């Protein structure tokens, strides 16, 4: 378990800058989630820390010492790839034991067997241990791939969308399991995901990436409630934040060009008249698609709301987020 520090790290592939001047500290024992669209540099960041890519500039330190000249094996990190790359010529058991048999760890076979059984039980693949890696379903492969990281106790776990191909039930179970491992072992995680729930429930810190740069780093609540830009604000929130011209509801603070409204920023029952275009009943929540003049916006309503398409409803903003022409947040407005 160790702190990981990136200082001014840049990496370009040809003309594409995957990561530019990234500075970030992953505190010891933290669970850091990286958010960002495809191409923002999330995976490259993981590969740089793992040692699969060499940075063009900058320094990477694990546990206080630079690892720039260390091989991936020497860095003592575990990684779960997005494309779960199980060794196809080995059984599930041997796949899980593979890291423990490495010359770096070289664990006695009896202990390997015990560790493999433990991890297999946690990931519910114990009954598949003697299968060939190629005879598994996608979800099972993904779990073996996670298991191959969890058998070890590396200085940091790097995970690249590890739960993306699992079904909803398994995903929520493994979310809890990963969180438990994090809490029990005090392990350090750097975790890439697109999933808002994973980010909000597991992360101690969230880093939002845009074109290879960290644009905001903070707790999930900070990122959600106090985003520095419209880009960050749009990364979290289900349904997504509504972006409207600043004057949609009347006077705006100086410099503001747009107003950002999360569902909780929309007070229903007073203010401007809007029309309900569609009502989506999701069970635990109900989404309203509203039309306000030329604009559309999505908000939430009571699950048992009597509203239906065509109804009129009055709305007004309630302490919304304001952004300037460049998308930067106007603080304190």
């Amino acid at each position, binding site marked *: 378990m160790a702190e990981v520090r990136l200082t001014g790290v840049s990496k370009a592939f040809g003309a594409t800058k995957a990561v530019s001047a990234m500075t970030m500290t992953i505190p010891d024992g933290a669970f850091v989630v990286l958010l960002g669209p495809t191409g923002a540099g999330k995976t490259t960041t993981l590969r740089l820390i793992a040692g*699969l890519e060499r940075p063009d500039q900058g320094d990477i330190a694990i546990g206080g010492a630079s690892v720039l000249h260390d091989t991936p*094996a020497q860095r003592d990190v575990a990684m779960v790839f997005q494309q779960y790359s199980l060794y196809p010529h080995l059984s599930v058991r041997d796949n899980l034991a593979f890291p423990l048999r490495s010359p770096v760890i070289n664990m006695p076979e009896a202990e390997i067997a015990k560790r493999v059984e433990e991890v297999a039980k946690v990931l519910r693949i114990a009954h598949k241990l003697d299968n060939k890696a190629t005879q598994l379903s996608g979800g099972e492969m993904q779990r073996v791939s996670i298991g191959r990281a969890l058998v070890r106790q590396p200085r940091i776990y790097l995970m690249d969308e590890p739960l993306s*191909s699992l079904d909803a039930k398994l995903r929520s179970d493994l979310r809890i399991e990963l969180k438990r491992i994090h809490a029990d072992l005090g392990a350090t995680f750097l975790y890439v995901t697109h999933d808002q729930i994973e980010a909000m429930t597991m992360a101690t810190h969230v880093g939002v990436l845009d074109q290879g740069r960290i644009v905001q780093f903070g707790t999930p609540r900070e990122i959600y409630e106090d985003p520095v830009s419209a880009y960050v604000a749009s990364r979290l929130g289900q349904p997504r934040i509504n972006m409207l011209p600043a004057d949609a509801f009347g006077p705006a603070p100086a410099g503001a060009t747009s107003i950002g409204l999360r569902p909780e920023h929309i007070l229903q029952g007073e203010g401007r008249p809007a029309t309900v275009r569609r009502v989506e009943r999701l069970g635990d929540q109900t989404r309203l698609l509203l039309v306000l003049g030329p604009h559309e916006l999505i908000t939430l309503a009571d699950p048992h709301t009597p509203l239906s398409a065509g109804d009129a409803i009055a709305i007004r903003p309630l302490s919304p987020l304001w952004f300037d022409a460049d998308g930067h947040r106007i603080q304190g407005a």
Partner: protein
Amino acid sequence: MSAYSITEPSRRAKLVAGVLVCLYAFITLLPLLWIISTGFKSGPDSISYPPKVIFEPSLEGYVNLFTTRTRIAPEALAELPPPETFYDKIVRERDMVIAGPSRFGERFMNSVIIGFGSTFLSIFLGTLAAYAFSRFKVPLKDDLLFFILSTRMMPPIAVAIPIFLMYRELGLSDTHLGMILLYTGVNISLAVWLLKGFIDEIPREYEEAALIDGYTRFQAFRKVVLPQAATGIASTAIFCLIFAWNEYAFAVLLTSGTAQTAPPFIPTIIGVGGQDWPAVAAGATIFLLPVMIFTILLRKHLLRGITFGAVRK
């Protein structure tokens, strides 16, 4: 109307395909059957016209292949003690006695040493080179690969005389090492290109995962890449062996005594009063066996798809 599936061929199509396959197999196997049967014919049967399909089998060809014989006068033959072995008996029926073993065994072993030796060396060097070309940034990679391929564009016999002179100067003429190096040189281009294709298809993620799991690059190569390249290595090895095993022109030119392989030796088997066709056919039959066995042993690896589907693409 009976149920039918779009993907399943109809009964009639299957029948036609089956007949065609059998016909093709028969045409392909006919020369092979001819050689094998000739090996078991007696001398007169082997040259009879029309050719005999049904004949009395004889081991004369095989006995003649492995022995040298001398003709002696019938009176002298009568004075000898009765034949001890079946081959003594066969030879005496033709008024001859066995003078000693022939050189066939030796030549056959030369073929084995040179064929398998050059195959091993081609695969060993080819795998390492193909891995480097597939995974590393090699300067002038495309030019080098083309250069390697270009060694195959020229007919080997075009360089026969320079190689003959070079080998004479270097003392490699008529040596096992010389023939192994020569066949490796010819095969290496095929090995590098074929193996590079196979290694290119093995996703890098496997090695990356192994690197992170605590292995060095060479260990990752040995434990992860090699097992998955087994299919490609096996099929490349078969191609290399077939070439080295069957090669005739260089073998005639560069070997005569110690390192002569079976291909130039077999046609020189001459019996009394002309070509000993049963012995030649017997030699050819035995000569076919190693490649056949090697191919059957590696057949399992030739079936592709062992590694299919473990990486999400």
